[in-house]
Structures are given as C-alpha cells and as structure tokens.
C-alpha cells in the first residue's frame, strides 16, 4: 500500500490582476505529494514556484482548482481558519530568515507557541529542545544581530519546527548563505525529513540544494515541466 497523500493539487490556476491586465502564474497544475516527501521546486524566475509554495502553505489562494493539504481543502476555509491552520500545521523557513530583530533567539522560537495553550514551563522546554536540535543551545539569549547568517537560519528552523508542524515550507533557505552554512542548513533539513518524517517543500535556485531533496519539480511559465524522483534518496518515514 502506498503512503498517504500529504498534498494534493487538482487543476490549480493562479492569476494576478494588475490594472486591466490578467497575469497567469500557474496553469492547470495537478500534483500529489506523499507524506514524508522532500520536494524541491526549481525553475527560472517568474516560473511560479514561490506562488505554488504560498498556495501549499495557505498564504495565498488559488484562482481556481483545489489545494488539499493534510486532508484539508484550503479553498473552502475562511481566512481566520486558514490562519489558525497555518499555526497548527505549517513551519516556515524564509530566505532572509525573517527573525524579529528585537526578540532574542529564545523569544523568536517561542513566538509560534504563544498561539498554543502550553504553559510557560512547557513552552520553555519545547523551545530549548528545538534550539538543541539545531545546535544552538547556549545561544538562546542572543539577538539576531549577534548571530551569523547560518545561525540565524538555524533559529528560523527551530522556530519552524517548535510546534511540531505537519509540513515545512522553505523559500530559498540557503539563498543568503555562504556554501558552508548552506550545507549545514541543508543537512539539517534532510535530517528533519529522514529522522522526523517531516514533509518538506523547498523552493530553490541551487541545483546542489535540490539534490538533497527526494523529488525535484521543474516549473516553467506556470506549468510543471519535469518531475524527477531521486531514487537514491532515503525517503523519511511519516510519523
């Protein structure tokens, strides 16, 4: 028996309106991603990969078609419900880390937990566990400006996983890092996929980064042009 589907896109279209112009970004897209898959989205600028990531993460809505993630049809949910759903199910990793500069590493990681009913003590335990997992215990009182780029991205990853979300989305997670830091971040993402079974969708321009994924989707002009399964990749087991 196959793995349960994590993400299902059915005939998805997305277009933007600029004044009287309609700009199509994604056209008739069908996609199925299994639980525990590590998917890399590649393609030239303007191919629609970030838009696709935003649709899957519940940050944007399809113009038509269905986006079903973890059994939920996001198009049928109200904005408030999608916001809540994101908090419960999605961990975000951004190219520029998007840490809050006035909060410490600990406080940044704690942010998503403030939306849960966890006690202060439990929040603290979870934050410290997440920081340990990304190798940053001892740095919890540092502000983002006191950390290197790689360390900032680790804090962002800790923030993404601290609520134990179903799905991790990463938009160019290594785009602002040197090669060494990029390798460390990619290893960390791979570890989250293989050891913890997290489904990951990553947008990247970097072929080396994409090689770490279990599957690579190539987009061009809003269409899926190639779907590569990385046979050698040890696909994680969904928990």
């Amino acid at each position, binding site marked *: 028996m196959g793995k349960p589907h994590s993400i299902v896109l059915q005939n998805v279209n997305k277009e933007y309106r600029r004044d009287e112009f309609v700009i199509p970004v994604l056209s008739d897209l069908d996609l199925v991603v299994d639980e525990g898959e590590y998917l890399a989205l590649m393609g030239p600028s303007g191919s629609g990969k970030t838009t696709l990531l935003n649709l899957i993460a519940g940050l*944007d809505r399809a113009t038509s078609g269905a986006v079903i993630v973890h059994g939920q049809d996001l198009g049928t949910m109200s904005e*408030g419900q999608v916001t809540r759903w*994101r*908090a419960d199910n999605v961990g*975000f990793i951004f190219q520029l880390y998007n840490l809050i500069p*006035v*909060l410490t590493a600990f406080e940044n990681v704690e942010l998503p937990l403030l939306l849960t009913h966890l006690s202060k003590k439990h929040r603290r335990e979870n934050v410290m566990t997440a920081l340990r997992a990304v190798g940053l215990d001892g740095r919890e009182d540092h502000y983002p400006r006191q950390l290197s780029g790689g360390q900032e991205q680790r804090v962002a990853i800790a*923030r993404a996983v601290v609520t134990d979300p179903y799905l991790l989305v990463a938009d160019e997670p290594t785009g602002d890092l040197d090669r060494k830091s990029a390798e460390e971040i990619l290893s960390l993402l791979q570890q989250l996929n293989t050891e913890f079974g997290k489904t990951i969708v990553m947008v990247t321009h970097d072929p080396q980064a994409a090689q770490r994924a279990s599957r690579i989707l190539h987009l061009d002009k809003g269409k899926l042009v190639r779907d590569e399964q990385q046979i050698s990749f040890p696909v994680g087991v969904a928990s």
Partner: protein
Amino acid sequence: MIPLKYNVRNLRVRWVNTLLTVIGTGAIVWSSCILFGLVEGLQHSLNVSGDPLDLIVMRKGSTSETNSGIELTKAEKIPTLSGVMRDDKGRPLAALELLNIPIVERLDGSRANLIVRGVDPVSSELRPNFQIVKDGGRMFEPGKGECIVSKNLTKRFKGAALGSELKVGEREKYRVVGVFSSGGSAAESEVWVDRKDLEQNIAREGITSSVQVRAASQADFESLRKTIENDTQFKLAAIPEVQYFAEQSKSSIFLKVAGTVIAILLTIGAMFAAANTMYAAVRSRTREIGTLRALGFSRTDVLMSFMGESVLLCSLGGIAGLLATLPLSAITYGTSNFNTFAEITIQFRFGPIVMLVAFLMTVAMGVFGGLFPAMRAVRMDVVTALREV
C-alpha cells in the same frame, strides 16, 4: 497574542522617534494639565471658602461685597442677634468687613486691582484654617497703619513682603507685620487691615461692605437669614456663604470651556504626531508583520499589538507631561475675578481633574493616533508583506 515586549523593545530601538513623540505628546498633556490644574485650584479655593453655617450679609441687589454698602448702624446690630455662634471668649462670630480694591504695583512693574479688607478681630475665626505662617510675623494692631498679607501675595506685589511698606492707591500705605495663610480659601488673595483704619483711610466712615456671620446651628442659620432679610430694621440680603462662592466660581466655567476646547485641539494635533510615528513603525516593520501573520497571528493580534504600542507611546508622553506639572504645585498664578475685577491668586492644584484630563488625552492620542496605522498593518497582504526587503 503578540508579546508586549515586542512593542516595548521596538519603541526602545527607535528611541529617537519615540523620544520626539514622547516630548511632543508630553508637552501637550503638560500644557493642558496646567490649565485644568489652575481651574481646579480656583474651584478648590472657592469651595473651601464657604462654610455651611456662614451667611454673608450685603445690601439687597448686590452681587458681590465690592458693590455692597450697609450703614454701620444696621450692621452693628447683626452681631447682637440671637442665634449667632460665639467663640471661646464669648464673642459673637459676626464680623463687619469693609472692602477696598485699589490699584497696586506688581513686582514686575505692572499694576493690578488688589483686595484690601478691613476686618474685625473675629474675622480670622470665620475663615478656614486661618493662621499667621511660621516666621511670618504677627497679627496687625489697630490704629498703627499695619497690615497682614496672604502668603500668596508676598511674592507678587511690590512692598508685600514681611517688614516692607505696602503702598495701595494714592494715599494709603501699610506696614506689613504678618503673613497669613487660610487653607487655600479666597482670603489668600487679600490684604487684611483693621476695619476702622481702612474706614479712615478711604473716608468711608459710617459704612461697611458686608457682615460675615456664623450661625450657632442649622436652625439658627435659617432663622437668622429670615430675620436679616425680612425684619424691617434690616431688609438686607443674607446669602449662604456656600451659595455666594458657588456664584463666584461661575467665572471658572469660562476657563473650563476654553481649556476643554484648547485641550481637544491640542489632542488632535498630538494624534497626528502619534499617527506619524506609528505609520513609520508600520512601514519599517512590513516584513515582520508579514512574518507574524504567516506564523499564525491573526489580524486582530496585529491590530491590538500596534494599537497597544501607540497607547504605550502616548502613555509615556502622558506620564511625562503629568509628572512635569508636579513642581507647579508650588507656584501661584494671578488672574482677575470676573465679578470683582480684583486680582485673585490661584494655586495650581494637582487633583482628579488634572489626572482625568491627562488620562483622557493620552488614551485619545494613543487610540486614534494608532488606529489608522494599525489598520494599515492589518490590511497588509501577507505575501506582499513577506516580499518587502
């Protein structure tokens, strides 16, 4: 909920903007508080001046002591009426008082009307907490051209300091032998001399301005009032002192209305200052707002966070403005009584009106100044906000 420390630290990080806004809003709260503090001082002065058992006897039709005149033959009978309270020494607590309002030179060289009150020995007992202040000399002695001066006036008029010679009008002058206080009452805007001395000096023998009477009880108060008003030998106006000062305090209504209008206009100005600061805050934190929304914080969370930051910012200004008014409790301000045109001194009073004004202004500035910038933050599209560099 987005933690408050996020807002507190952002205010600290943008400390120049924060400081400028705090100074601006603080100055506005400060200036409004001064105005209302003086109104409160004026009201307090007039409120404490009236005793519920006291009557002020004046000529019928007079609106204040300054335009009242009673023949001495009539006035001297009032202390002998039954129902008048007596002091420890058995003296009736009824004082004939004569008012003169000469023009006196202020220390700064300008001139103002000043109340010189010719009093009887029991007059001081008819004023609240009347006392010669510490190291403030002694009570005047009749027939020696002496006076006592309210502490508030000593630093406002030329020759009003203890031991000086106070020149009032063209011919009158008195040696200041004492400085008094009287619980913040209207007496604190006056110079007191012996009534008979004043009679001679201003050539108003045989006449007095008013009689201050204290009734022995509430029942006596009513009967005294009826006697003085209706008995053919008097036919005078006996006005309850509380009512008299309530009438006098109507002049403060103008100050209050003017103050309120000014405070509202200033508050609107401060709202723009706060809004400007908050718009800048929202603009510079667009990506942070997008991130918070992506993480699952709702529009309401963002709205409350930015509104809270605005209220916090204006509260800092409000508190600073309010604290800056504290040293003013030590100063007095002179203005004209609209009924007598005499100078009255008002002590700035840090009381409930001032605190209410500061609170209302702060909340209005914070809420309305923060509302539109916060709405802008709330309306942001998450995807667009996340793209902001």
